């Protein structure tokens, strides 16, 4: 589970067809850009969660 948490954001980040589109836009920003930007903090949270699990 710990390693899965580390792996998932990487797989999503590389799954380009998933987000290679203009819509839906957010504040005028095409999906391609805001989705990848959003993925950055999500990936950090995933590493954080994995780190917590490692200690438990």
């Amino acid at each position: 589970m710990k390693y899965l948490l580390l792996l998932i954001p990487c797989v999503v980040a590389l799954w380009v067809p998933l987000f290679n589109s203009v819509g839906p836009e957010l504040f005028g920003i095409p999906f391609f850009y805001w989705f990848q930007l959003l993925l950055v903090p999500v990936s950090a949270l995933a590493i954080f969660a994995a780190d917590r699990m490692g200690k438990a």
Partner: protein
Amino acid sequence: MFEHLNVVAASVFVFFFALVTILGFLASRWKAADLGHIAEWGLGGRQFGPWITWFLLGGDLYTAYTVIAIPAVVYSIGAYGFFAVPYTILIYPFLYLTMPRLWAVSRKHGYMTAGDFVLGRYGNRGLELAIALTGILATMPYIALQLVGLEKVISALGIKGQGAMAHAPITIAFVILALYTYKSGLRAPAMIAFVKDTMIYIFIVAAIVIIPYELGGFGAIFAAAQKAFDAKIAAGAAATPPVKVTAGLTLAPTQVAPYITLAIGSAMALFMYPHAMTSTLAASSGRAIRFNAIALPAYSFVLGLIALLGMMALAAGINVAPPATDAVPQLVLWAFPDWFAGFCFAAIALGALVPAAVMSIGAANTFTRNIWKPFVHPEMTPREESVVAKLVSLIVKVGALLVIFFMPTQFALDLQLLGGVWMVQIFPAMILGLFTRWFSGSALLIGWAAGMIVGTSLAWGEKAWTPLHALKWDVPLLGNFDLGFSAYNGLTSVIVNFVVAAALSLILRPRARDETSPGDYTDSGPALASAVFGEVTL
């Protein structure tokens, strides 16, 4: 030389430059220690806690060249330049899983470089030398590119020298940098990184709020960028002979595989660079590194925002010639009052100095420990090592200056591109080595050589070096292979490297002594237990 000088911007710029110069010299007294010892000069005594490491690694990895080049690609062709975001997403899970292990084993055995670790693990001098040379070779053009970034912002201030004076400003800046790096070692960039990173954050937050406001919002920015790309495509089609331009707000089908492979290959290469390894090994604990795997993505987010500056430059109607490295400086001049433009340029300039300092220290440590010591003067004391490393840090910077003086900028760009392809070739030896000793040193050395040759020859183009290559081969007797897409040469060649190393490891079983033991790689409980109870087999 100063006819077009922007006095206000230049004054602010000079103020910040002077401030960090003082900091750079004062840094020698920070966490006071004997800087005559190489581990103190070259690794800051391995005592940087989580926050200092955050500033240092962030300041070191997200360079001035990134701030200039990534938006330049976005300005030129759009979505493709955004590969920097998935690239930096991949880095941190990797950092989290691998670098605490490297840190722990390095602390235990006093390793300071990739070459040190490889020698200890595989007992193979040839492999150590290969890894050291790769690091130095790839770092030199990277330092030269920091100079390109520095020169861009200085010329945007309106300082443009003629003839022999053309490079005078960056020469002065670099001599000052060289002197305080010589004196303070890694402490200097660590301290300056606080100022640099804070300034970059202020610059980006201001840019991301003010510029869209001036341009009528993100919707208007992206619409204008779309128009600019359409115009470029139309202009390309109308040219004689017609040029096919691939640019847009999303990736064209042919760009998808390059986008993915470039992100993977670049992520694999990043922590192999001597400067990344130096900043990582300077941390005070494995915990400090893990903390940074969680906290460093803040910089990646900022990098994504920086990339968007390319779109804003298009929407602002900034018109610069390829490779568009003037897009960001011109956008800053267009959008901000002079004093704040000077602030932003100073931020970018410091973004060149911090990595340049760490890179020269990383290269100097590598040269001293893995080339000079084993091949010239095996009986060196840490004190003598420090003397050589300090001198080499000067020589490396002079070398980078000479590259800028005597070679076209394109040469440094090409070499940097190749540098990434070369750097990733040490990945199998380093990273597999952190987890297993199944591979043999000589097999990894041959794999490295295969990867270097394949990577360099794939990049060889008729007119210029190219980062990508179509995956199709005409193999005699076996027929044609065509995977139908192009991939980043770094990734293609490191796969060759890995396959060769794995196949040869089946034949050439490792015989040399491994001075590390499994417990050395963990920094929590087990290491302590084995320190207390002796070696426990795991």
